[in-house]
C-alpha cells in the first residue's frame, strides 16, 4: 500500500468570537483543529467515529460532531466550544446547574454534553424531560448514569430562559 500524499488548506473560522486561521492538512478534523490550532482542548475525542459525542461543538449554532467533519468544511463559519460558555468569569446557569446537581464525575464527556444541551435550550427554551433525554441519548457518559445530568438540565431550564 502507498502512503496517502498529504494536501494542505488554509482554514479560517471564528471560534468563540476570535478568528483562528491556519494552514492544515486537509485531513485535519474540526476537533483536531480546535484542539491543536486553536489550542482549545475542552473539545474531547472519545471515539473518533461519531458515537460518543465528546467532540460536540456548535457550528453556526448547530450541534456538530467535531470528529466527523473536516476543519476545511467549517471554513468561514462560527464555532462555539465549551471554553466559550462561561459568563465572563462565572459559570453560566447550565454549568452551575451541572455543578450543583453532581452532573459530572470525570468530566470527559461533559463539554460535549454542555454544547448539545446549550443548543437544545436555545431551540426550545422549555424542553421536557423526554426532550432532554432524547438529546442526551446522543452522548455517552460512563461515569454518572445520566440521571444527575438530566436533573441538572431540568434545573437550568427551571432557572429561566436566558442561558447567561
Amino acid at each position: 500500500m502507498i502512503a496517502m500524499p498529504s494536501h494542505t488548506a488554509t482554514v479560517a473560522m471564528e471560534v468563540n468570537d476570535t478568528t483562528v486561521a491556519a494552514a492544515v492538512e486537509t485531513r485535519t478534523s474540526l476537533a483536531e483543529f480546535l484542539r491543536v490550532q486553536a489550542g482549545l482542548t475542552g473539545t474531547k475525542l472519545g471515539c473518533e467515529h461519531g458515537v460518543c459525542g465528546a467532540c460536540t461543538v456548535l457550528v453556526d449554532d448547530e450541534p456538530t460532531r467535531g470528529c466527523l467533519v473536516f476543519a476545511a468544511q467549517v471554513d468561514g463559519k462560527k464555532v462555539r466550544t465549551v471554553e466559550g460558555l462561561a459568563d465572563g468569569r462565572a459559570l453560566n446557569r447550565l454549568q452551575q446547574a451541572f455543578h450543583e446537581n453532581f452532573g459530572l464525575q470525570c468530566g470527559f464527556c461533559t463539554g460535549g454534553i454542555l454544547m448539545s444541551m446549550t443548543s437544545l435550550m436555545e431551540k426550545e427554551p422549555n424542553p421536557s424531560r423526554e426532550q432532554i433525554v432524547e438529546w442526551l441519548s446522543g452522548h455517552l457518559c460512563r461515569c454518572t448514569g445520566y440521571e444527575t445530568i438530566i436533573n441538572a438540565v431540568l434545573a437550568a431550564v427551571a432557572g429561566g430562559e436566558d442561558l447567561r
Partner: protein
Amino acid sequence: MTWQTSSHRSTPMVAARSVGRSVLRSEDPRLLSGGGRYLADLSLPRELHAALLRSNEAHSRLLAVDVSEAQALPGVHLVWTGADVATFCQGIEGALAVDGCIATVMPLLARDTLHYVGEPIALVVADSRAIAEDAMELISVTTEPLPPVTDPNAALEAGSPLANEQLAGNVGLRGGASFGPVDECFAVAHRVVEETYHTGRLSPTPMETRGVIASYDWASQELKLWTSTQMPHLIRYFVTAYLGIQENLVEVLTPDTGGGFGQKAHLFVEELLMPLASRELNRPVKWVEDRRENLMVAGQAHEQFITIALALDSDNHITAMRTRALGDGGAFHQPPWSMAVEPWCAAAVTPQGVYNVKTLEYTYEAAATNKAPVGAYRGVGYMAGTYAREAIIDEAARAVGMSPFDFRRLNVVKQLPWVNGQGVTYDEGSWLESIDRLEQMVGYEEFRERQLAARAEGRYLGLGISVFVESTGESTAMGKAHGLPDVYHDTATVRMDPNGTVTVTLGLTTQGQGNRTTAAQVAADMMGVRPEDVTVIAGDSTRHTYGSGTVASRGAIIAAGAIGRAAGPLRDKLLAVAANMLEISTDDIELADGRASVRGDSEASVSIADVATSVYFDDSVWPEGFDPGLEATFAYDAGRPMFSNGAQAALVEVDPFTGFVTVDTMYVIEDCGTVINPGIVDGQIRGGAVQGIGAALFEQLLYDDAGQLTTTTLMDYHLPTADVIPVFKIEHLQTPSSHTWNGAKGMGESAMIAAPAAVLNAVNDAIAPFGAILRDIPITPEDVLRAIGQVTD
C-alpha cells in the same frame, strides 16, 4: 450538629461539619469550563507521536516483519519490532500471588508468535500520529496460521491446541479448597439445585482512552512519564524494574483522568515502550490510544462461566455449596491483576455472600485463549460471583416455592460477628436488615398484584433482587484474610499554612470519583476549617506521597485513614496553642467552623487562622518544648478487611414482541458506613448500576471462531445511553465501621457488583409465565425471544 465517634485507634472526637454533607465538588468549575487537562491535552516541545501496528490475526507464527518502507517514509523517526525491543526488555511478567497461578511473560512487541488480535507487532514514532499511521500501512508482516483457541471450556480439554506455549494445558490458574463435609451434605440433601451462568466479556470503556507521554533527558538522565493510570507508584516501580532506570530519576505524572474503572489499574506495554523510544530518540514521545485499540486490547474483563450447586435440607436451608469459576483469560497475564483475579475472587473470596453456609468447596480456573488479556474492571470477581450466586438463590427459591425475599431471609446470616467457612470474620453490617428494607421499599405484595394485573393485559413485569457483601478498602490485612498476600499502604501529608488554610497530599489518584472533595471534607473536619480552605493534591506525581492505587473501593477508607493520622498531630498542636491563647485546658476546646472555641462558652474563641499564625510566628504562646511547624506525613494501612453490604432490586418490563427489556426502577439499599458525601456516593451508585445494566443487557465483546474481535467500535459495543436508564430509589443504612477512621466503608464498586443479578432475576421473573429462564448475560432481545419461544430455528 452531629458528633461522630469511633473507637478506632486514637481517632479524636471531631465535629462533623462537612462529612455527611453533599459538599459541591471542587473539581467541577475547571472541568465544566473546558479546563480539564487530560493526557491527550498535554503537549511538550519537540514531541513525536507513536502508533502501534497490531496483529489482525488471533494465532499465527510470526515469520517476518519488514519495516524498511516504513522507515523510509519522510517524517518517520523510529520503527521497532519485537527483536529490537527485546534487547532492552524481555517482556513483562504477570501472575497473581494466589495458589495455583502460573506466570507468563508478555513481550513488549510480538516476537515469534501472535497470540491475539491486537497484539502489538511494531512501534512507529513519527512527526505526527497521521504519519505514524501512514507508516504502519507500509510494514509488511508474514505469518503462518496456528489454530486459534477461543473457547475456554474446550481449551482445558486434553489435546487442545495451546493458546500460549508458556501455559501447559492452557491453564493460567487452577486451585481450590474445601471446608467441612461437603460430599456428605450433598449426599443427604433434600434437594440439589445446580446451574451454570455466563457473564459476557466486557470492556470497562472509560470515555478517555489510555495514553502515555514519555520524556527522557539524556543530560539529567531523568524520565518523566505521564500516563492515564490509577496506580502511578506501581507504574514507576515497574518502569524502574524493567528498564533499569533508577527510581529517583523517574517521575510518573497523572493528569486529569477520564474514568478508569479498573482498566487503568494495570501495567501496559505502552508504558514501557514510550520511555524506551524517548530515550532512544532523546525527544518526548506521545501515544494516545484510539477507541478501536481500547476495545481490542485495553484490559478486557469479567467473562466467566460459573457453576454453582446448592444442597438444601427439607426446611430449605442451604447446607452446603459448590462453586466452580472458570475465567476466559486471554493470552497473557496482564500485571498486576492477571487473568487469575476474576475467577479466584469469584470462587474463593465470598462464594457464600451473606448466606449462612459454612460447608463449601470451590475451584477456580483461568483458561488461556487467543484473545486479549483480561484484567480488572469495577467489581472484579465480585460481579460475576454475586451474579451467579444471586441467580441460583432465585432459582432455588422458585424451586421450593418461596418468595425471593423469604428464601434469602431464611438463609441469611442473622448474627454478626460471623466466621465463614474459610475462617474470615464478618463483624459489621446490616445483612438481614438490608433484605427487609428492600422488601418494604419495593412493596413486594403490592408489586405481585400489579404484576398479575399487567399480565392480564399481556404485559410482562418482573422484579429481581440481588444481595451482596464486599470486602472493601483493599489493604494488606484484607488481602491476607482472603489468601492474597499483597501489601498495600498509602501516605498522606497534611500541612496547615500560617493563615490557616490546608494542603493535603495523597498518593491516591482520581479518575472522576471526586476524591479531592471528599478528602478535603475529612481534613476540614479534623482541622476545624471549611472544605473550601483545603486543597488536595491527589496522586498527580510520584514526587508526592506514596500510594498503592485508587482501586478496589479503597479510596475513602485509605484517604481518610492517612489524612486522619497525619492531621492528628497538627490538631494537637492547634489545640495546645489555642489553649495557651485562651488560657484554658485543651480538653475544653472544640475546633470547628474556623474557630477554636471553648465548649459551652460561645464568646470565648480564637480563629484557627490566628492559632496557625501563632504556631508559625508567635513563640510566646507555644507550650514548653513545642515542636514548631504544622506539617505531618503518615502512612496508613487498614488493619483488617472492611465489609460493605447492600441489596438491590430491579423492576423491569419485557416486551414479548420485540424482546426488549426496559429497566423501570432500580431500588438500592447501600450500607457503606458513614456517608462522607451523599452527592458523590449516590453518583457512584447510579454510575455503577448503569454499568451493571450495560453488562446485563447491552455490552459484550464478541470474538468469532477464528478469534477475530467483531466489536471494535462503539456502534458494536453498546454502552447504555440516557434513554435506557431506570429511575433510581436509593436508601442508605449506615453502620459506621469501628475499624476505619471516620466509619466510612468502601463503595465504588458495589452497585456494579449487585446490579446484573438483579436485572437477570427480574427478567426471569417477567418471563416465568412462558416457562422460560435465562442464565447468561448480556440478555439480548434475541435471547428473550428465543427463551419465550417467539423465535425458533
